Every structure is written in structure tokens, then in C-alpha cells.
């Protein structure tokens, strides 16, 4: 009897394994949390140091156009050109990518059939996986000369950045939108066809309409990617921190100024802190994109 009782009250091997697994995952999660929190802390504290330690004006940061944090005696930290540059390439590339993504995704889900999807899916996934330096390199050798001959100017600028980012975000937006189209129940298609709709009417009056939240989420994801992309943009945008007056003259983005500047500054000085402030803006924007997708995600199922 005692043996049975002992056997019953003893933790089984499975439950001990369970506990060990729990402990390991907990440790990993804690580690990740620590890393994320320290990154957040570091960017925030350094980014704010520009304003609190170096006493630069926040208003100037967002409204002034001259970026020269190492100027003497008065440093200038006007980030407006980069902010405008970043938003321009982001919005333009997303606007350009959206119709292509919609068309491609619709084709994959509702027109091409299983076999077409089997071919296109890996192509899209491959495009997502190409390193950004490759895109930048192609941009430099193909897109910049193309922009120069077709649209004039040096070829470097927001337009080239837009084109390169367009190609980079297109697969992301497409594959996300494909997922949301697949989630639109088949019976909506049936209901529409049974009411005498053509396939095309069904697509644009029901399927696209039902999947608008998913489409917006996909586009915002693409925008987040475009906003944060550094290398490829830096290679084609011209890197002049002046307020862009047109799309074909050299400009800059938050990321391009960061990547070009970070090696030339000393930790703890204003020029370095000013770059952290740019990073803080990037961080806040990615937070905004994140919240937006969450907000939209709550509103609709597809």
C-alpha cells in the first residue's frame, strides 16, 4: 500500500520535465525582456540627453532644417530634412507598392489557382529574404541611372529611394495580404456568385472590401519596414541633409544619417547624442506602426 502511495505522490517524470521546460522558457523570456528593456532605456536616455544635457531645443529638432551637431560655437540639430525624407520615401513607396501588392495577392489567391500559387509563393518568399545591401547595390547600378535619365537630376534622391523601397516592401505587403485574403471565408465567394455576381465583381465588391483591415495592416507593415530600412536607402538617396525640394535631388533619411554618422562621433558628446535622438524618433515611429496594426487588427477579422 505504501509503495502505491509513494508512487502516486511522487512527481512523475513527465511532470518534472514539464517543470524544467517551464523554467527554461521563463529564463529565456526574462533574458529577452531584459535585452529589450535595456535597449529601450539606452535609446531613450541617450536620445533625450540631447535635449536635457546638451540643452538643445526639442522644437528646433523637429522644425529646423540645418543638421550640424558638431558646429562651434552653436551646434545645430534640425532634423526636419531627415524626418521629411524618411516619411517621403516611406509613404511614396507604400503608395506605389499597394496596387501591385493587391493585384499580385488577388492573382495568387483568387485567379491563379493552386498551381500558380505554388510557383509564386516561393518567388515572393525569396524576394523577402534578399539582403538589403543587394537591393541597394542594384539600386545604385540600375535605379539611380534610370532615374537620372528619365527624371533628370543626379539620380540620387527620394525617387530612387522610393523605387528601391518599393521593390523591398512589395513582397512583404503581398505575402501578408495573401494571408488575409486566404482568411476571407469561401462562403462569401459562393454567396456573391449565387447572387449573380461575376468573378471580378465578387473580387472587388466582396473580397477586397472584406479584407480591407488586412490590407491596411499589410501596408503599415510595409511602411514600418520602409521606415526602418537603412542600408539600401543610404546607397541611393544621396545623403545630403537638406530639406528636399524635389524628388530627384539628394536627400537623407533618419536611418541614412544614422548609419553614415555613427562611426564619426564620440560617445557622450552632443554629435553622438543627437544621433541617438534620431534613433529615438525611429523607435517611436515603429511603436506607432505597431499600435496602428494592432488597432486595425481589432476592428476586422481578415
Amino acid at each position, binding site marked *: 500500500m505504501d509503495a502505491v502511495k509513494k508512487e502516486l505522490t511522487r512527481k512523475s517524470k513527465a511532470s518534472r520535465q514539464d517543470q524544467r521546460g517551464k523554467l527554461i522558457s521563463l529564463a529565456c523570456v526574462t533574458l529577452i525582456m531584459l535585452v529589450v528593456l535595456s535597449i529601450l532605456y539606452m535609446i531613450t536616455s541617450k536620445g533625450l540627453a540631447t535635449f536635457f544635457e546638451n540643452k538643445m531645443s526639442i522644437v528646433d529638432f523637429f522644425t529646423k532644417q540645418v543638421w550640424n551637431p558638431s558646429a562651434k560655437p552653436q551646434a545645430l540639430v534640425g532634423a526636419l530634412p531627415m524626418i521629411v525624407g524618411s516619411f517621403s520615401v516611406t509613404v511614396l513607396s507604400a503608395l506605389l507598392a499597394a496596387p501591385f501588392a493587391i493585384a499580385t495577392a488577388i492573382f495568387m489567391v483568387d485567379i491563379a489557382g493552386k498551381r500558380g500559387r505554388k510557383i509564386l509563393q516561393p518567388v515572393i518568399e525569396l524576394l523577402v529574404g534578399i539582403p538589403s545591401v543587394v537591393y541597394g547595390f542594384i539600386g545604385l547600378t540600375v535605379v539611380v541611372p534610370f532615374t537620372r535619365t528619365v527624371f533628370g537630376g543626379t539620380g540620387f534622391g527620394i525617387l530612387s529611394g522610393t523605387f528601391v523601397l518599393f521593390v523591398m516592401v512589395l513582397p512583404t505587403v503581398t505575402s501578408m495580404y495573401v494571408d488575409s485574403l486566404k482568411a476571407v*471565408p469561401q*462562403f*462569401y465567394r*459562393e*454567396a*456573391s*456568385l*449565387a*447572387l*449573380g*455576381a*461575376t468573378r471580378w*465583381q465578387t473580387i472587388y*465588391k*466582396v473580397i477586397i*472590401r*472584406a479584407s480591407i483591415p488586412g490590407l491596411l495592416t499589410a501596408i503599415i507593415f510595409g511602411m514600418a519596414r520602409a521606415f526602418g530600412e537603412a542600408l539600401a536607402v543610404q546607397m541611393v538617396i544621396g545623403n545630403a541633409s537638406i530639406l528636399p525640394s524635389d524628388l530627384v535631388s539628394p536627400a537623407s533619411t533618419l536611418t541614412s544619417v544614422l548609419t553614415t554618422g555613427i562611426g564619426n562621433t564620440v560617445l557622450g558628446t552632443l554629435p553622438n547624442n543627437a544621433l541617438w535622438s534620431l534613433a529615438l524618433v525611429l523607435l517611436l515611429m515603429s511603436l506607432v506602426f505597431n499600435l496602428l496594426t494592432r488597432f486595425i487588427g481589432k476592428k*476586422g*477579422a481578415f
Partner: protein
Amino acid sequence: MAKDIITAENVHLYYGQKEALHGISLGFPEKEITALIGPSGSGKSTFIRTLNRMSDLNPEVTVTGAIRLDGEDIYSPKTDTVELRKRVGMVFQQPNPFPFSVYDNVTYGLRLSGIKDKALLDQRVEESLKQAAVWDETKDHLKENALSFSGGQQQRICIARVLAVQPEIILLDEPTSALDPVSSAKVEDSLLAIKDQFTIAVVTHNMQQASRISDQTAFFLDGNLVEFSKTVDMFTHPEKQETSDYLNGKFG
């Protein structure tokens, strides 16, 4: 019996190699309710979906025989399935309103035909929702998402959506099997209310429902039409042994 508006003549249907309908011949009298009953898997859905060519959506399907709507074979190459489906509407087992407002659901078919006149749309919405017996519940919420209504209300909105197009024939595939008894009764009421204007074919595995609402009943078994007669006759003295067994609950 009134004259048949749509008739199936020796309809065979194959899913790939597998024959699911073994030569069905059946006519639907105008402005009456015909119930299709039979155990599950007997081919009721398969058959009803041939009547508006929804079966075409499955590329595996082949249909032989003829289905005549006002004398014209709907399987002839010159049939326009879009026009056909406007004349032969369909309500599905699972309520499937679009995730739009009630108003947009009911006007969907009309807008497809290019009708934009607001007054006409409004009028049809009211008329159809009334016919489907769901007007009182929806009239103050026409701009609300149709999915926010109960299952029974959704199903009646779906019926209204079909009625708005003013089809000649309405096919319903187990329209109440996903609903509770109270909602089912309301759907039945609305079918009875509209039967003097539309020809109705309703699949049901609820025999009481068939006996309550239908004028004639077709009994399907294993892809065959076993018996087809006036509902009263079939339920009081069925001709075939299988029919009698089924009605007495010996299988199904």
C-alpha cells in the same frame, strides 16, 4: 398541379469518376414549395446546386442530362450563368451575410445589376426585409453590420438579400439546420409568406418541416430520386418501402 417552371431531365452528376446523381428527373411546379428530403449524403445538396449551376464552381464536376428553365436548357453553352443565378437564387445552410451593413447586403444584387437609384434601393430593401420577416428587427439598424445579428436574423437577411433580386426560383439548402427552433419557425413562416410569388425548392432533413411547409416532396436516397409526390400523399401513404422506412425513422 401548376406547370413546372424548372425541370431536371435524367441528370447525372460525377465528382471526378464518382457518380453522385444517377439520373434525376424532377419538375418544380411554379409558385409552390418543393421539399427535398433524404438521409445525409443522398445527393440533395449536389442536386440543388445543379439548378443554378453552382456545381460549376467545382472543376471536378461533370453534369449530363438537361435542366430546363422555361424550356431552355441551362447547361447549353449559350447560357449566361450570371443571368441564370439572378433568376435562380440560393440560400445556404450556414447563414452567410457579407460583413457589411444590412442595407449593403440586401442591395448587393441590385447594385450588381447597376441599380443606383436610392429611392428604388430603399424601397426594395424594405420590401425584401418585410417578405423575409426580419424588417421589424432590422429597420432601425440598417446601417449596422449584418454579422452583429443573431444566426436566425442573419439567415432571414440572407433570404431578403436573395428576394431583393426578385428571382423566379429560390433554392434553399437546409436553411434552418444551423438555427434554433424559434428561429427556424420564423424562417418557415417567411417561406410560406412568399410562396405565392416565388417557386421554392428547399432541402431539409427535418421531416416535420417538410410536411409543414411543402406542397410536394422528393425523397432522395444514394443519389437516386426514390419517390416524388404531393407531401400529404407521401407522408400518409408512401409508395416505396424505402420512403416508408425513412419517414418512420428506420434510417437516416
